[in-house]
């Protein structure tokens, strides 16, 4: 059962990765191109025209990065997220709420999108090329993953709290209390953690906004497809399992 859910999750994740790739290709790539053009402009301005700017050896062409590279990255990321989603779903389904597989999958995907994408992105948003200095990559990576882990932990705390209050105070009040706990934890942690701002002076605000919204949009596409498609597949596998049981009786 868990094995088949895991397989379905990964397949759904691959599908979701393909959709995310389509979105990123249309909305994200133009922004990356603009950012790289800006980066080259800056590099050209720094070196005097007498000696042409030293071209960095191009290991992978831009066309490959924007095509096959982006596709590979999106699909592998999608498959991995889909697989993890299926494992969490296998634990959550039937344990937290009386909801069926489709509603559980949809709500779990929404909650995961908020905790894994939105909340961390509020503090440490995606950065286009030419933003961020190579010397701070270590610290930035640590802070990003720390924020991610805290955010997931906050979601677990919020759900546990809501579940505890549910019986006595009803679903609405319990849900509000859980959501409020999540917001308070995230707000406190984000207030306390150091801010990273490595945006160069005069960097296009429009480019930054479009890049970041398309990054969040790409994740939104991924999680929407995972939540809805996995729910449909999981419902079928639960139905066939109970059908087989009924037939054996």
């Amino acid at each position, binding site marked *: *059962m*868990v*094995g088949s859910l*895991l397989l379905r999750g990964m397949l759904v994740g691959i599908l979701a990765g393909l959709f995310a790739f389509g979105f*990123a290709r249309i909305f*994200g*790539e133009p922004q*990356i191109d603009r950012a790289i053009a800006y980066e080259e402009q800056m590099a050209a301005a720094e070196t005097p025209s007498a000696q042409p700017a030293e071209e960095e050896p191009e*290991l*992978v062409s831009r066309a*490959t*990065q*924007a095509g*096959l*590279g*982006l596709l*590979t*990255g*999106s699909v*592998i*990321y999608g*498959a*991995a*997220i889909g*697989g*993890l989603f*299926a*494992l969490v779903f*296998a*634990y959550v*389904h*039937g*344990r937290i*709420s*009386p909801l*069926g597989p489709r509603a559980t999958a949809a709500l779990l995907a929404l909650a995961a999108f908020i905790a894994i*994408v939105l909340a961390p*992105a509020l503090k*440490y*948003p*995606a*950065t*286009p*090329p030419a933003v*961020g200095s*190579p010397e701070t*990559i*270590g610290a*930035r*990576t*640590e802070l*990003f993953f720390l924020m991610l882990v805290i955010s997931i932990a906050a979601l677990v705390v919020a759900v546990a709290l809501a579940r*505890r209050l*549910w*019986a006595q105070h009803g679903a609405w009040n319990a849900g509000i209390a859980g959501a409020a706990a999540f917001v308070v934890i995230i707000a406190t942690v984000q207030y306390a953690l150091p801010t990273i701002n490595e945006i160069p002076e005069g960097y296009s605000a429009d480019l930054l906004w479009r*890049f970041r919204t*398309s*990054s969040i949009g*790409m994740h939104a596409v991924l999680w929407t497809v995972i939540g809805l498609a996995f729910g449909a597949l999981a419902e079928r596998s*639960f139905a066939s399992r109970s059908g087989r049981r009924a037939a054996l009786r």
Partner: protein
Amino acid sequence: MSDIAYAPSALPQPIPVREILPWAVFGGLLMLIAIYFIGSEEGAMTLVSGLNTHEFVHDARHLLGFPCH
């Protein structure tokens, strides 16, 4: 487990933890390694020398929001 007694009959049958655990360990590790290679290899840490992985998934890494150079 008094806290799940609010609607015991309505709850779908959960999958036992001992059935989930081996898959979670095996699958979870595999998925995290995959995410590591897409998100962070040759960024803050390097397992395979060179910059090929980094350059190949460069655009995906930026757009997925991982810290990148």
